[in-house]
């Protein structure tokens, strides 16, 4: 059980929760989160948005019953966290771009914070949030509102590109990667539905070039060319 330090609304339906505890999460990892006992049944996977001496932060969007409950929680309430889980982003080299679409920006903040150089591309459909936080990292930040953020990224200009966002965006990134010079190592972070979160149940399984892998324990970050998106 982790005590909630704060849980604040940062935009319409978007919240940041800060939960107490000493974790050693790496960028791109996630936790299985629940703020209730047996209902709803499954825990909700949330990426590490940030981590400090006090605990871990999640940036999340109210998408349904579970995140709605999380949004109603207050400082002092308890959440149950299992994690950090997954492999997170691999070590990078060279020029790096971090591309996030919507709530997919969540894992990029902590990633960017640890990189010496990174260009940030953040795409939003309706409202921009956490812009100030991202800008305070002193990396170049390009914000796209209502357009297609990937269009702003020149894949040939980077050695490493991380893409997080809805599945159509990940497919577009695959396509763009395939059609580029191939200089960049392109990675995507998957958000498959999960149950155990630790590699035991295979419900998050994803087709890969060499057979199936588990989005939770083999991912959630994969090389873009490696995964077959439905």
């Amino acid at each position, binding site marked *: 059980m982790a005590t909630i330090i704060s849980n604040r609304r940062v935009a319409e339906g978007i919240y940041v929760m800060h939960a107490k505890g000493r974790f050693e999460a790496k960028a791109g990892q996630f936790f299985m989160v*629940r703020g209730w006992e*047996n209902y709803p049944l499954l825990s909700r996977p949330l990426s590490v948005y940030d981590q400090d001496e006090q605990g871990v932060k999640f940036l999340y969007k109210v998408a349904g019953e579970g995140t709605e409950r999380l949004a109603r929680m207050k400082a002092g309430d308890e959440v149950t966290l299992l994690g950090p889980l997954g492999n997170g982003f691999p070590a990078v080299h060279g020029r790096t771009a971090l591309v996030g679409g919507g709530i997919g920006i969540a894992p990029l903040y902590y990633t960017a914070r640890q990189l010496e150089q990174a260009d940030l591309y953040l795409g939003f459909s309706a409202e921009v949030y956490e812009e100030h936080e991202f800008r305070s990292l002193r990396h170049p930040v390009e914000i796209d509102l209502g357009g297609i953020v990937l269009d702003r990224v020149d894949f040939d200009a980077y050695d490493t590109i991380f893409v997080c966002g809805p599945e159509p965006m990940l497919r577009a990134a695959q396509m763009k990667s395939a059609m580029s010079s191939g200089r960049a190592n392109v990675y995507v972070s998957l958000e498959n539905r999960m149950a155990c979160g630790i590699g035991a149940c295979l*419900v*998050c399984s994803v087709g890969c070039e060499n057979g199936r892998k588990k989005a939770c324990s083999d991912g959630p970050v994969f090389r873009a060319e490696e995964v077959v998106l*439905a």
Partner: protein
Amino acid sequence: MIETTLDTVCRIGKVAFKNPVVMASGTFGFGKEYGKLYDLSKLGGISGKGVTLHPRPGNPGIRVYETPSGMLNSVGLENPGIRAFLDEECAFWERLDTVRIVNLGGGTVQDYVEGARLIDEDSTVREREGRQAVDMIELNISCPNVKAGGMAYGIKTSVAREVVREVRAATSLPLMVKLSPNAEDIADMAQMCEEEGAEAVSLINTLSGMKIDVRRRRSVFDNLYAGLSGPAVKPVALRMVHQVCKRVGIPVVGMGGISCAEDIIEFIMAGAEAVQVGTYNFVNWQAGAELAAGVERFMAEEGIRSLDEIRGIL
């Protein structure tokens, strides 16, 4: 100390489970992942992810959907095949101090039989070398029967009989048959298993269910239907276990929706020798250890010294 005199041992033939809490097939991998989170020797046993003769990729598309107090899954028996299981996972099992159950799936009777034989042969070798890894086979008859047009073996007793008989003949390992709640008559099915020489039956597997995505106007699952598990199904599971216990003399392992120690006691009072816990592992990753402790706590509170005192009292 009351605790030291509590007898939680459950038995299927010569196999003794230190407590009634067995992790259910498909929800616990082969134990490695949860084994990093807690000590697996606290468990009565583990039933591994279902394996088949040949490796299987499982089903495409979405594989899980949450429902009120339950979940639908459509994993579709993704597994590395029996050989890979024996070669790669079994070394881990050799070192486990808990009952280790191979969950065996299939497609044709021949696949089932050959699978059972492989496991049996491997077991003979390991036993000779003093490093046994498998204590029991759990035969999952919910798999689609290729010959019967894809209808699962688990539905009609007459269809299932052949596979149980043949697998029984193919192995000398203790055999537990896992029954489907979609069976036409689950008590009949259990009786058939007893007649064919199974040491035990386990039930229930998942209930066939459906979820439609009304915006996309199609099933959430590529495979159309999926399997329902979790607390939602417990009343049905408990009723079926009770019915089966009234019908057969062999031990019955009950499961379906267990999520607290009282649930386990209910199954034992309905006549189950032991239980399995599946979906609840996803709700509480320490489920196994906590439930095993919870059973002891209940026994101490109620002055029960052996589960035999309450087993089948209904």
